[in-house]
């Protein structure tokens, strides 16, 4: 039998055994745990998000208006915080300002949440209307304060507040960027969460073989690489079954929800990821697969060295910490600038799948994904190879089963 045939025999046994076990029921309840994790995750990263998602407003006015708005903003920021107001960026007005505003908001390479035009007395704000209307409220405040300040300078009475003339658009380039960042973050959270749930299981999967003393039969029949790959494939299959089930349930629930509420409210349209939905969904699945196989191979390698559940528990905490560090590295692809650390996140094999999933949401090029997937696949094989060799060297010794963790302790005395 070749490597894949052997791996298939192992995978089939593990898959059937797991699907018909109590564990699988618990696994199907995982979305509840994942949902809780996502809430926790979104709370802890809220501050970081706000900083990263500070809206940028293009100010397409004469320079005097722009200057007045900027001065007011500086004054108010000094007594509040930088994040309390959108960033204002001056843009030279074209002949047809409304058309210019529409074009700027449609341009995905720019990052504008809205366009301010007109004058302080007749202000116009073009852009999408969000539920919080943060941009609209702050711009109105800036306009009012600027007018009040001008009145004070001219020793005039305080002017009455003016309403912004709103031109509502479907979307803005800034909103698209924000939505894509959120999409990338959601993909990362999904990939991370499911892998985290299966981590301990993967760590302990070889302990079952060792405690049942089947490992020697497997090692005598098929290459150990096939045993490792088979176990990874089985666990991946189980998680994909779970994902398909949860996905179907989520789609059904969302469809029902949309049908129910669409009669009363207009729901905002979700911007597609940069690579488009048709490429994004398979890419996220492929990156999930790569992430699972990569981290799974590492866990299997570590777990293979343990000889009992207690040793597994000992290594569980460092493993979770390692996963968190990998996640933080990958998160740079979502929130950070394209610096060295972000590139390291794309290239480092263990963070590459999550970082690249985020890249798929925010950048339209497809070729980096082909490169990344090939790179990640190569590393799956490298790690499986190293793990199986370590396993053969340290665990399959003589008639007494050895353990890397014992490091010489607890050996049987020589006869």
């Amino acid at each position, binding site marked *: 039998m070749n490597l894949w045939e052997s791996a298939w025999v192992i995978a089939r*046994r593990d898959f059937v055994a797991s699907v018909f076990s109590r564990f699988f029921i618990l696994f199907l309840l995982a979305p509840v745990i994942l949902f809780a994790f996502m809430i926790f995750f979104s709370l802890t990263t809220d501050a970081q998000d706000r900083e990263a998602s500070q809206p940028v407003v293009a100010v397409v006015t004469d320079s005097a208006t722009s200057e007045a708005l900027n001065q007011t903003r500086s004054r108010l920021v000094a007594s509040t915080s930088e994040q309390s107001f959108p960033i204002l960026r001056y843009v030279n007005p074209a002949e047809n300002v409304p058309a210019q505003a529409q074009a700027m908001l449609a341009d995905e390479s720019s990052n504008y949440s809205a366009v301010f035009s007109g004058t302080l007395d007749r202000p116009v704000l073009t852009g999408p209307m969000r539920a919080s209307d943060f941009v609209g409220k702050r711009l109105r405040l800036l306009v009012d304060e600027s007018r009040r300040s001008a009145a004070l300078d001219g020793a005039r009475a305080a002017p009455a507040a003016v309403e912004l003339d709103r031109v509502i658009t479907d979307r803005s380039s800034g909103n698209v960027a924000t939505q894509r960042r959120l999409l990338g973050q959601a993909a990362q959270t999904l990939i991370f969460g499911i892998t985290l749930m299966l981590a301990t299981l993967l760590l302990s999967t070889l302990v079952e073989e060792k405690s049942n*003393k089947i490992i020697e039969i497997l090692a005598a029949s098929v290459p150990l690489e096939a045993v490792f790959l088979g176990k990874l494939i089985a666990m991946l299959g189980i998680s994909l079954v779970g994902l398909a089930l949860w996905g179907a349930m989520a789609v059904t629930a969302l469809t029902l929800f949309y049908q129910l509420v669409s009669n009363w409210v207009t729901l905002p349209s979700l911007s597609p990821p940069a690579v488009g939905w048709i490429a994004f969904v398979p890419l996220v699945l492929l990156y999930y697969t790569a992430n699972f196989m990569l981290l799974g191979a590492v866990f299997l390698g570590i777990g293979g060295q343990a000889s009992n559940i207690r040793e597994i528990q000992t290594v569980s905490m460092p493993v979770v910490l390692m996963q968190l560090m990998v996640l933080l590295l990958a998160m740079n692809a979502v929130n950070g600038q394209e610096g060295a650390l972000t590139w390291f996140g794309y290239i480092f094999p263990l963070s590459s799948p999550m970082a690249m999933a985020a890249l798929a949401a925010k950048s339209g090029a497809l070729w980096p994904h082909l490169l990344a997937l090939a790179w990640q696949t190569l590393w799956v094989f490298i790690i499986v190879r190293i793990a199986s060799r370590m396993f053969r060297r340290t665990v399959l010794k003589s008639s007494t089963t050895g353990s890397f963790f014992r490091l010489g302790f607890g050996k049987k005395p020589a006869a």
Partner: protein
Amino acid sequence: MSAALAIEAKGLFKSFDGKPAVRGIDIAVPEGSIYGILGPNGAGKTTTLRMLLGIIEPDEGQRSLLGNDQPLEMAREVGYLPEERGLYPAMKTRDAIAFMGALRGLPLETGRKRAEILLKQNGLGDYVDKPIKSLSKGMAQTIQLFGTIVHRPKLIVLDEPFSGLDAINQGRLEHMIRDEAASGTTVIFSTHVIHHAERLCERIAIIAGGEVRFEGLVSDARERLRPQVRLKTRAEDGKWRSALPKDAVVEDDHWTFELPKTGIEPLLKALLDGGAGIEELSVERRGLHDAFVAIAGESAAREMEADALGDAA
């Protein structure tokens, strides 16, 4: 060496953590034979078998399994029962046997059918759908044995197969080993119980301290020792006593000594002429146990006996 060797190993050497486990193992197992590896626990039997099967790699030396120096490539043709028995507790007996066959390339469906036949042939038809965890230890061991042969291998390797079995199951296993060999399958097994090897094997390797002390026919091992003479005479003393070797010992009125190189006839004549008054005289061929003691040493033999007692307990 003849070309028809199922296993050939030359100079196998393996050490763990710097300590040698086996040192220069040479063995040759002819196809279709029953071959025993004898030695006390810790002698290096399991390490030797694992190296022969490709589970671990030797540090030095060469081995070939069914003509291939990459043993795992011949996995389809090999059945292996390790010393530490293991099965998935939740698996049904039929599926466990079929799974072990599938690991060796046997289609699952074929494996299930053959498993049923094996179970029924051996009076275990009622256990086809029973999970392994519901079986007794001996029965589970039998199931694993069926899993070892379900794919009809050319070579069966059994590591301490009699260990943990009761007398009935030991007899059943001996019967099965003979049947497999009769159908042309090569069987190699390790044991620390000499009488199993004596009853079953044509050839043996005696391993002690990680080295092969003897490798060859069982009859050759026995013939390393001269037959033993037991004699009881009516006369307590007389001229006949000079015919006995100097190291002859008397116990319970019986003299025991090695048959002199000159043979039985001159001895008999000297006894008769010397007026011994022979009451009993027997010439016994020495057993494998005595040969083992002579080859591996008294301490190795004592360890083997202790191991066997441990099994029985």
